């Protein structure tokens, strides 16, 4: 599971001064649940996820991933998560198979289990036809499949997916949604961010609305409906964000 404790991140920008990207965020995502992070562009979703993946260090507070602390055990944290975002591209000169095998090796998998596991994933995502093709020769849908395979090659218990359907066509998006559901069925803990309301509505067990680095509301869809008094998630979102934001 993921547990954040007063997690904060402040950037220093020469022109704009101090930017509070994440402010005192305390969240809990349980195994077997899909946790949605909802926010506008620049709300702090990506920064929060980068903190959890230990790529960035928090200014204050911390988080535990499967019991490992992001500050003191970053390598353990990274081997327990599968992280996917629009910023995690693939090496264009490697083939699909080489890419998946590379990340399997970095995750400490042995050669024979790499073979077994990648066979499994290539079959699962229907990628056998372009297994030995170089990444720069693949379509964006194919690339996203390879990215997914790369993300879960070590069978992580926790998935952190930053806008995984961004810029993808309907079919590929559907594949990803199916993949997230499947992960939930396998009792994995999924944290995913989006700004597409209906995606969150369909998928999430719990939703957090983030704005200007702060969590404005968190809970199940039912709970959010009750507290705000509106039915549709987009209305709830606009109401919550609108209270602090001037459009």
């Amino acid at each position: 599971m993921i547990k954040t404790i007063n997690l904060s991140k402040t950037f220093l920008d020469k022109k704009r001064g101090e930017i509070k990207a994440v402010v005192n965020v305390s969240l809990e995502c349980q195994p077997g649940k899909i946790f949605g992070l909802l926010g506008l562009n620049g709300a702090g979703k990506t920064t929060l996820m980068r903190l959890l993946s230990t790529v960035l260090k928090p200014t204050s507070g911390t988080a535990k991933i499967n019991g490992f602390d992001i500050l003191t055990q970053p390598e353990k944290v990274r081997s327990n998560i599968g992280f996917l975002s629009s910023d995690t591209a693939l090496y264009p000169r490697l083939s699909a198979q080489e890419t998946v095998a590379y990340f399997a090796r970095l995750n400490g998998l042995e050669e024979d289990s790499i073979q077994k596991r990648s066979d499994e994933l290539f079959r699962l995502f229907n990628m056998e036809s372009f297994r030995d093709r170089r990444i720069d020769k693949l379509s964006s849908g194919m690339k996203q499949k390879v990215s997914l395979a790369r993300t879960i090659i070590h069978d992580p218990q926790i998935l952190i997916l930053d806008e995984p359907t961004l810029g993808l066509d309907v079919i590929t998006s559907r594949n990803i949604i199916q993949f997230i559901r499947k992960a939930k069925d396998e009792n994995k803990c999924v944290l995913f961010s989006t700004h597409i309301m209906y995606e969150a509505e369909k998928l999430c067990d719990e939703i957090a609305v983030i704005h200007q680095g702060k969590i404005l509301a968190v809970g199940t869809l039912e709970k959010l409906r009750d507290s705000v008094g509106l039915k549709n998630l987009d209305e709830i979102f606009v109401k919550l964000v609108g209270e602090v934001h001037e459009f």
Partner: protein
Amino acid sequence: MNFNTIKIIYLKEMKDMLRDRRTLVSMILIPILLFPVLMFGMSSLMVKMTKQAAERVNPIVVLGGDNAPFLFSQLQVDKSFEIVQESDYRAALKDKRITAALEFSRDFEKKIAAGDSAQVEIYYDAAEIRSEMASGKLDNLFKAYQDSVVTERLKIKNVDRSMLHPVKVDKENLAPKEKMGGFFLAMFLPYMIMIMALTGAMYPAIDLTAGEKERGTLETLLVSPASRGEITSGKFLAVFTASLITSIVSTGSMVITASGSFARFEEMGRGAVFSINPLSILILFLLMIPYCCLASSVLLSLSLFAKSYKEAQSYLSPLLIVIILPAMVSFLPGFELSPKLAFIPIINTSLVLKEVLLGTYHWGFIGLIFLSTTIYASIAIFITRRLFEKEQVLFRT
């Protein structure tokens, strides 16, 4: 740090690198082709130019030709000169219509015949290569004439020519033929190899850092369990390998090219044999190791700081000049190694490589320079490692 992880990253970076055409060109193709093209191109150009110059007819103006009818007739039949008429020889020289002008003093040959001395003036333009060459030819012509006059006069007086040269100076070049060959190579090789070691590693360094940032693959690697130290080490080793491969390839190419062209020198009778002591080559590679480490980590640090390929290139171009100028000391005559210079990076390597190629092994200096460059390289690697831990550098916006 896990060595297996470093190996995984290193092997992947090498595979990736060897699939990049730009890297292959700068690492292997250019070092192989550069020296033969440069050397054969230059030497054949020089041969062609010398031949052209020898065959060229020089238009000249002769003033007072009546005073020296014999020499004038000789000039008329000489194929390298063409006597032309110009009213103002100074203007003609300036406009390059003539290459030189001659002025015989009054009664030139009569005075000579009488056993007196006479004067001839050569006017030329030293800033014009053709004019300079024409004046040289005229010089030779008059020297030969003078020689024949002296011989004639001595003959009349029954004096042996050897009277003129009571001291006979004989010069013998005791430099072994290897040293003569090494001398040419010792000037060029340190400079060239140091530059090539840098340019060969340049594309890989950019590709592995700024290139990864630009393509968005850096974050993919950063979220893997590999630590920043392991990532830095793997990437550093890959760039270092590229640098070392370029050094080896360029040394090989230069040695082979040079032996080819020195063989031609020998045909011309200059007696330079090209051969380098294998020990020299061994020491050369030993000294290149810390230098390549230093170059690789400086390249990595600078390009890691850049956001894109283009930005990295604009950081690295000035670096090339920073290396080229000090490395050029191997060209400077009389610039010798001293304990102080042994601590200045680049200059020290360039100078010690020159000595080693000449077959002089100052083991103290060799050890000192190996050590000091290793220390600089370690500092540079440490800085690179620290930069990889700075999120302001990795996620510069």
